[in-house]
């Protein structure tokens, strides 16, 4: 749930990058952190293990500027993708306004994407939220690997596996090169703000 401060005219919006382990959620935020310097006011916070796996979450506040006189502060979070961390994933989802589901396009990750998306659905239900209602954007990440001869799932397969019922907007992307990372971010922010406006005004 977004938080609106009528005194200071600030809207805080929570967007969570969700997906299986090592799919590239943290890499998305790192790219955003590097390339939108003038919209980022403070340091990125990363709670991670020695092996650079997310332990709790990454947090990056992102200033959108003003819409209708309101200062929009986007709070970007990632969840830890490793299977054993579902309790913490759930905590991060509390009060979520918009979600990017980052799928790993590598052929060998096919099952893991599906399992992660199913668990997202269940986790949202535990907050009485529905995956069909929360603004959601699909990102099929690591498409750059194709050039290196690593087998990648065709987008049609990913769409069929993950997005046939949800019908969410989707992007092929590469979080390491930044390809479609800004497009994904812009899309999720736009969908989220539209949904908040519908609820409020």
């Amino acid at each position, binding site marked *: *749930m977004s*938080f609106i401060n*009528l*005194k200071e005219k600030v809207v805080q919006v929570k967007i969570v990058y969700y997906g299986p382990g090592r799919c590239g959620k943290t890499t998305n935020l790192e790219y955003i952190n590097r390339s939108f310097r003038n919209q980022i006011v403070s340091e990125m916070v990363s709670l991670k293990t020695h092996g650079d796996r997310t332990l709790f979450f990454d947090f990056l506040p992102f200033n959108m500027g003003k819409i209708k006189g309101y200062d929009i502060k986007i709070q970007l979070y990632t969840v830890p993708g490793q299977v054993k961390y579902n309790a913490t994933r759930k905590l991060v989802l509390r009060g979520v306004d918009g979600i990017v589901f980052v799928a790993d396009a590598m052929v060998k990750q096919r099952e893991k994407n599906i399992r992660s998306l199913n668990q997202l659905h269940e986790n949202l239900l535990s907050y009485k939220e529905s995956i069909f209602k929360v603004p959601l954007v699909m990102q099929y990440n690591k498409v750059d690997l194709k050039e290196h001869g690593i087998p990648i799932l065709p987008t049609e397969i990913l769409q069929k596996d993950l997005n046939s019922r949800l019908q969410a907007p989707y992007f092929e992307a590469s979080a390491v090169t930044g390809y479609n990372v800004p497009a994904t971010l812009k899309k999720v922010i736009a969908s989220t703000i539209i949904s908040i406006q519908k609820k409020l005004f």
Partner: protein
Amino acid sequence: MNYGIVSQEQIEQIDAILTDKLIKLGVDCVIVIDMAGNIITAKDNSENKYDVYSFAALAAGNFATVDAMAKLVGEEEFSLLFHKGQESSIHFSKIDEELLLISMFGQEISLGFLRLNVVDVIEQIKRLWNKS
């Protein structure tokens, strides 16, 4: 109370309570956040400036983690959390199911005295909330 929106009036009233009961006592910084990590309001003594947005995200995570641990050992909740440092300490207290009050303070203040005031502040904030 709709937790999504707070009016100018509500925030001003809460700010007044925080200033009166905690900042005047010598607390460096007080933040009211919700469990999702949003800031409802933040007050400081204008000497200490913290990155309150990151702080709120971490504090909500911290509180949620301890809350989940409480459930695992069969406790309803640990409604109070306290971290003590050399120079400064942090005190967390639950206002209700959705809101947390966080105070940062130095050595000059005793924990006991702070707690009394925090209890008072929470009572007053709750009363305000329930009116709206």
